[in-house]
């Protein structure tokens, strides 16, 4: 269903690429630091195992202080740099663009109720045009849920009693998995849905068709729309 492998999950939103670069950067740094520590430990254990001929003279006094200060300050600045990178990425993405496609989402115990701008309603499914910024206006009717689409690298807890917004710009046509990430009781693992990203033309056609179908249904039931 969603392209990509587990190691390289599909990036289906404009923001997803930048988040992946940050994540793989951090994975790279972590692998590097882990290798350094592993080599140090394994190297010392083999070179200085008991009975080996390596020299055991006392460490030079200066050596221990200088090294300590170097890697303390080094680690500090490395972490500040990573924080800087992550914080700027977070702040860039903070404010949604001015005109977005506003979709209302209501999370209810164990389903997602989605309402398109033109009134079309769907359960556990969402159709989106590609390359247009989408803003979700979300609220919950009972407990805390969490709207999570891994392909868009987007997640936002939906807290009852408050309106939460989440925005992203899908940039790849396909269907992606919508999951609930915040534990919400019995059906937490069944609260899944599908996001279908279509071309703008398909989306317009889909909206019109769904709108017409909805009107036919209401006319047949005789209710006031």
């Amino acid at each position: 269903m969603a392209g990509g492998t587990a190691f390289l999950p599909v990036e289906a939103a404009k923001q997803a690429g930048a988040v992946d670069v940050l994540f793989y950067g951090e994975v790279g740094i972590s692998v590097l630091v882990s290798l350094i520590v592993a080599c140090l430990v394994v190297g010392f254990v083999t070179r200085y195992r008991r009975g080996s001929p390596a020299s055991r003279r006392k460490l030079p006094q200066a050596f221990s202080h200088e090294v300590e200060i170097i890697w303390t300050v080094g680690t500090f600045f490395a972490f500040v740099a990573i924080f800087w990178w992550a914080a700027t990425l977070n702040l860039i993405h903070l404010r949604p663009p001015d005109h977005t496609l506003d979709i209302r989402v209501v999370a209810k115990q164990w389903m997602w109720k989605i309402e398109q701008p033109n009134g079309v309603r769907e359960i556990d499914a969402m159709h989106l045009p590609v390359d247009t910024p989408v803003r979700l206006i979300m609220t919950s009717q009972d407990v805390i849920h969490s709207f999570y689409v891994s392909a868009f690298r987007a997640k936002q807890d939906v807290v009852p009693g408050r309106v939460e917004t989440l925005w992203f710009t899908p940039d790849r046509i396909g269907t992606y998995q919508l999951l609930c990430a915040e534990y919400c009781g019995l059906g937490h693992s069944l609260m899944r849905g599908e996001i279908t990203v279509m071309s703008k033309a398909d989306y317009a056609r889909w909206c019109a068709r769904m709108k017409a179908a909805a009107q036919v249904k209401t006319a047949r039931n005789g209710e006031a729309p």
Partner: protein
Amino acid sequence: MTDIPFQSLPEAPRAPATVKSYLDEGHTLASWLFTTDHKRIAILYAIGITIFFFIGGFAAMLIRIQLLTPNGTIVSPELYNRIFTIHGIVMVWFFLVPSIPTTMGNFFLPLMIGARDVAFPRLNIISFWIFFLGALFTVVCIVSGGVDTGWTFYTPYSTLYSNGHVIAAAIGIFIVGFSSIATGVNFLTTVHTMRTEGMTWFRLPLFVWAMYATSFVMVLATPVLAASLLMIVAERALGMPLFNPHNGGDPILFQHLFWFYSHPAVYIMILPAMGVVSEVIPCFARRVIFGYRFMVYAMMMIALIGFSVWGHHMFVSGQSPFANIYFSFLSFMVAVPSAIKVFNWSASLFRGSITLEAPMFYALGFVGLFTIGGLTGLMLASVPVDIDLTDTYFVVAHFHYIMVGGSVSAFFAGLHYWWPKITGKLYNERAARLAALLMFIGFNLTFFPQFILGWAGMPRRYATYPPEFQLWHVASSLGAAVLALAYIMPLFYLGWSLYRGGKASANPWHATGLEWQTASPPPKDNFAVPPRVTHGPYFYHADNDPSQPTKNAS
């Protein structure tokens, strides 16, 4: 760290055979259940937490079996929710938080500072009974009462929608919290007022510093947990709409108060592990610990900054962007001391003469796994990555690397390192090394696939999952089986050593801590004669270690 001039010192005095060890001080049940001897209380705690470790472990096995298949039918989703709640509550509050401080801390803190007992012995035994009875009561409540809120008790689910016995569980944990506070008060007062002559602050072994920092965090964080649990009880029982969003309450408020305790709680779990590893590595590398003062300052900084980082659990919970930024920054700052400690442990091996007995293997395993756990913590501290990864298996893998890879490995390192001193018996070294290796392999096979699951988008606490994640779940469940086997092995060879093990000398590892200068098992008053300390700890060096059989070319 100034290098103290070495003089050759007399070998530790052979404790006269007639001195009765604390084990022979009384064989009646009452002499054990109502003892005020810190060593016996440590053993009571050890038995208690082992029972709860296997209860939590059994729940973990059920989880892993259920997740073998995407739509597992071993347990119904409702039962699955209860099982992961049991696993969370029992492992966090009844095993990990009390594990090292109450067992090794209780046993060795007085020994390492040259005291006869802790400051308030009666409070010590009361704290054990509060822990044991409170924990037993809570386990019975959550098992029979069907609590399915997860160990985090997030509102409004836990207050308005969960129909399990949440009130009983909250009261049980509230009671067990007092035993943490009592232990913390006891250790802080003991270290401040009962150090023997000559034991200045910077001659304290790092394990004592770790107990001091842990007690500091235990004492200041646990009351806020008590307050937040009390508020859940107030909302459920009294009908106060504290966290009810429709009546003016705020669900996020509970998360703030809960995580104000629960993040310092993870430092309660990891700081003692750092203390044990800082004792074990110098002993088996025959090296003075590298940068003793930096290690002390690092531990105290972790304890202090640890109180101001809890917001990184709530990046996506609707917290204000400003709060996300400063909690993210503070989380990066608290990682710096941990990184320093890892480098210091590695540097302590430089120019040592290293042997890989079981304690050392666990300690080095700790250093490796704690590094991975710490670095993945950094990833989760950066906000955009956390938005994708929070509440997924990436977080599950991260905290298991810290808690199981770090804290439990260090627990086993300490258990094996001090086993001769506690029981006076030697354990079977080969079996211990096999168990350590099996645990290392089983652990990585269990939790590394969960990193990949998390990055692929598998959320936490799912009874059934989308089928594309199955490959990694099967690998993880396989690893869990190996890990379970590795956890059972010590029961056998350590139990065997109690009856068939060789008699341990006062100092089988030729270590230099104060606890090794008395008989093993130590007499009731710990030392025949009150010791006078003249040097700092970790007095190792390969050149003039008299017990060193082969003279190294220096």
